[in-house]
């Protein structure tokens, strides 16, 4: 039960069908996954094992997902993503207050979960004052961006968008993740807000360059390529 990307996940989910689908697809994606369907067993496993991230259902037999995370946080800071039913929209704040790191409402696209796990399991670093992705450099204190040393002018929302992409360089970020993290919007606004902003950012970054550092991943989201 050891994945080839070296990342270990713990899935605590009591819905058998969803759990087996997730297990199969996470293993396909080279994660080593341990599964429990009972909240108390899940907590024991989380405390005993060494996991890179936890995927925890909000409603569990034995112990509620929220209580599980609260108990876990007293001992460990393993990143946690909650899974919740649609009627639990309002639980997001409570979930994050209890010490969770991210929140995903069922039903979700598997790509969405995968993208969020990749972001959660990135090696924790100290909050940097400078970000670098390939030829792009960002100074978070001076709020300036350069590409190959040339200044790039960005409006504040483009800056925040690029900051999030750079922090997760080479990882896919979904539309939902961008809406939540860049605009604090936790609902589907309907139009292509993200697309419009990405297209502005692309134009700004490409000015005078031949390559496009932002890659569109069809049906999933976007990826900032650090190699460009």
């Amino acid at each position, binding site marked *: 039960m050891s994945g080839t990307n070296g990342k270990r996940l713990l899935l605590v989910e009591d819905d058998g069908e969803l759990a087996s689908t997730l297990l199969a697809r996470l293993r396909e994606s080279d994660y080593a996954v341990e599964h429990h369907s009972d909240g108390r067993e899940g907590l024991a496993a989380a405390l005993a094992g060494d996991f890179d991230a936890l995927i925890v259902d909000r409603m569990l037999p034995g112990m509620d997902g929220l209580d599980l995370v609260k108990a876990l946080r007293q001992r460990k800071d393993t990143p946690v993503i909650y899974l919740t039913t649609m009627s639990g929209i309002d639980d997001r704040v409570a979930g994050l207050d209890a010490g969770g790191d991210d929140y995903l409402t069922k039903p979700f696209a598997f790509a969405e979960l995968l993208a969020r796990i990749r972001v959660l399991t990135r090696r924790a670093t100290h909050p940097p004052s400078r970000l670098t992705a390939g030829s792009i450099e960002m100074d978070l204190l001076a709020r300036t961006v350069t590409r190959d040393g040339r200044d790039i002018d960005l409006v504040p929302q483009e800056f925040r968008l690029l900051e999030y992409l750079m922090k997760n360089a080479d990882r896919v970020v979904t539309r939902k993740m961008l809406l939540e993290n860049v605009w604090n919007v*936790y609902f589907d606004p309907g139009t292509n807000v993200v697309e419009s902003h990405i297209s502005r950012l692309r134009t700004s970054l490409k000015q005078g360059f031949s390559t496009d550092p932002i890659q569109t991943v069809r049906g999933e989201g976007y990826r900032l390529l650090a190699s460009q």
Partner: protein
Amino acid sequence: MRVNRIIKSGTFRLAAAFSALFLVLTGALMGTVLWIVDNTQTETLVRANDADTETVLNGFSDEGIDEAVEVVRQRLGNVKYSTASRPDCFMVLENGSGAVLAGNLPAQPRRIGDFTTTLRDTRIRGRGTPIGEGAYLFVGRDLGPVAVTRERIIDAFIWVTAGALGIASVTGVLLGRRFTRRVDAVARACKSIIAGRLDERIEVQGYNDEWDRLASAINDMLNRIAALLENLRQVSSDVAHDLRTPLARLRNRLENARAESTSTTQYAQAIAGAIVDADQILSMFAALLRISQVEAGGRLAKFANVNLSELCENVFRMYQPVAEDYAHKLTANFDDGAQVRGDAELLTQMFTNLIENAIHHTPSGTAIHLLMRIAQDTVYLSVEDTGPGIAADQTEKVFRRFYRLASSRTTAGHGLGLALVSAVVQLHDGGIDLADAHPGLRVNVRFPVNCDR
């Protein structure tokens, strides 16, 4: 049965408790009065005895025993008789050998000082005094009048108390009956509602007393419940009706795929289409759930201080590139430093829904103007466009769930945007209306700056 109910009523019990308290207090008062009157009357008798004793002693010390005898005789000559055989004053003067020298009593045991005794069945307050040369003087007074006063006071108290208790009981029964009747009215209405007559209401009698206030509060609650039930009924029928269309489309697509697909590419296309259909259904569900959450009012608890100027500015910046992509001209004018109480997330969604509508339901080149200002503790927020507008007879209907104008049936959307906007506005205790912007549409939203309810 009926009397039993009255006796069991809270009012009657309260009246009974107060009557008992009244009895105890009356008893205490009566005891005090008796004690004071007794003491005062007895003291008067003691003083009279003292005065008589003094007179006899003075006679004795001035002119000897004969004069004392004379004084006693004179004094007894003035004695009043309450009845033929009961004088109000008794005296006896004895010499050293115990012989009665004067008086209206036989010889007395020579008790000294102030005391109470019984002589011939009469309670007497008396005083015995040795007056010299072995002589002894007894002066006494009948305690009968004191006892009579005492009996009269007790009688008076008994009558007054009995009368008061009688009045209290009658009042208790009458009040109890009145209150029982009003409680019965409330209980009857509730039972009737439980039995299914949901439009039943409790009669408000117009006295504006606590019963009327209770009745109004219950009626308000019933109205709210009725509105929620109606809402629920409406949602259920909406869901049944409007989700059938996309579900039918999904089913057709899958059926066609099974019947007609011959390659994996075709299957993949069909599945991708089916996922799009399913996502659309799910987003309708999410929107419906959100509306009902907002309408249920549970989010009131999440109200906090919101910097509305910042919120509006963020939404405006968020939509600027979108409007440009649709070749719309988006402008804004917001008051600075606007602080309100509300749900930031819902206010954001309300505002974005209005802007989305303006962008989607107008042709390219439309000018859209956003406005937010605060005047007299009210927030005015409007989204105005120069598009085709909405016919006057449609302006109410567009707030209904799933309602879509004929002109916008072909554009994307599920007809829930304005229903949510309306729910959010109501949650913030505000109002919304659609106005003709000549040309175009102006959506006006207003809500109080502080809507903590």
